[in-house]
């Protein structure tokens, strides 16, 4: 149904943006997950978007999440010898989650999500009006 392709396009964006929101939620939730081993510390998740044809025969690209990449920044090393998870030298390692960056990401994702909902609402109204005009 090529005339309803706009719903596939906007729908793909809603899905992708919600993956992004989920990644932000996961990153913020794990911001305090400290460990005593720098290799097992939580790595913040970064979804990577890609333009792709969402349905067969659809000429315009929607969007999909190509991969959820790990942020490779070094974990934050803190000296807390009294911490139960501290390594023998007294250090604990926290994920390199920047709360400000995550919040900005969240707002951006939410705005994009809203814009696509708006697209869908408008497309629905126009489609219904067109069907109504032809069937009256």
């Amino acid at each position, binding site marked *: 149904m090529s005339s309803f392709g706009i719903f596939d396009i906007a729908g793909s964006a809603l899905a992708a943006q919600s993956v992004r929101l989920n990644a932000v939620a996961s990153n913020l939730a794990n911001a305090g997950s400290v460990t005593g081993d720098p290799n097992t510390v939580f790595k913040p998740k970064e979804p990577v978007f890609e333009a792709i044809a969402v349905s067969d025969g659809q000429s315009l690209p929607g969007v999909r999440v190509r991969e959820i990449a790990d942020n490779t920044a070094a974990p934050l090393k803190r000296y807390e010898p009294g911490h139960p998870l501290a390594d023998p030298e007294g250090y604990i390692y926290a994920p390199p989650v920047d709360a400000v960056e995550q919040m900005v990401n969240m707002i951006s994702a939410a705005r994009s999500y809203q814009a696509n909902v708006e*697209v869908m609402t408008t497309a629905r109204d126009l489609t219904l009006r*067109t069907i109504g005009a032809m069937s009256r």
Partner: protein
Amino acid sequence: MVSDDASHASQAKTAVAGPLDNLLGIQGTALSLHRARIDQIASNIANADTPGYLARDIDFEQALQRAAGSADAGVDIARTAPGHLNAHNSAGAPATQVYRIPLQPAQDGNTVELSTENAKFAEAAMRYQATLTFIEGRMNTLKTAIKGGE
């Protein structure tokens, strides 16, 4: 079966093309082009956060001229791999896409500016409605004529 349907559809189109085309003029073509433009802008908005995505729009005037047959047919781009996108817009006319010039280019190569796209989307939706209103009016005129003014 598909070809049967297609030939049937084209026969039906030729059968009614005369009176209906005269009735609607270029408005029918304009409606589907507005629709194609709305789809294009929706695709831009969907890819507002895709790195390297270049925002595109449809040159409406050129597309309409081309659809009306007063301009040359342009060139088609072949799809040689399953991942390739069609070079046609959804109205089936050859591509008359133009790239949007960004006011503030982004570091990741994306040229979608949500504010611009929102404005263009609203504009395209409004133009679609205007054309639709015109078509509705013509339909009502025809209906009045059929019913003899009742």
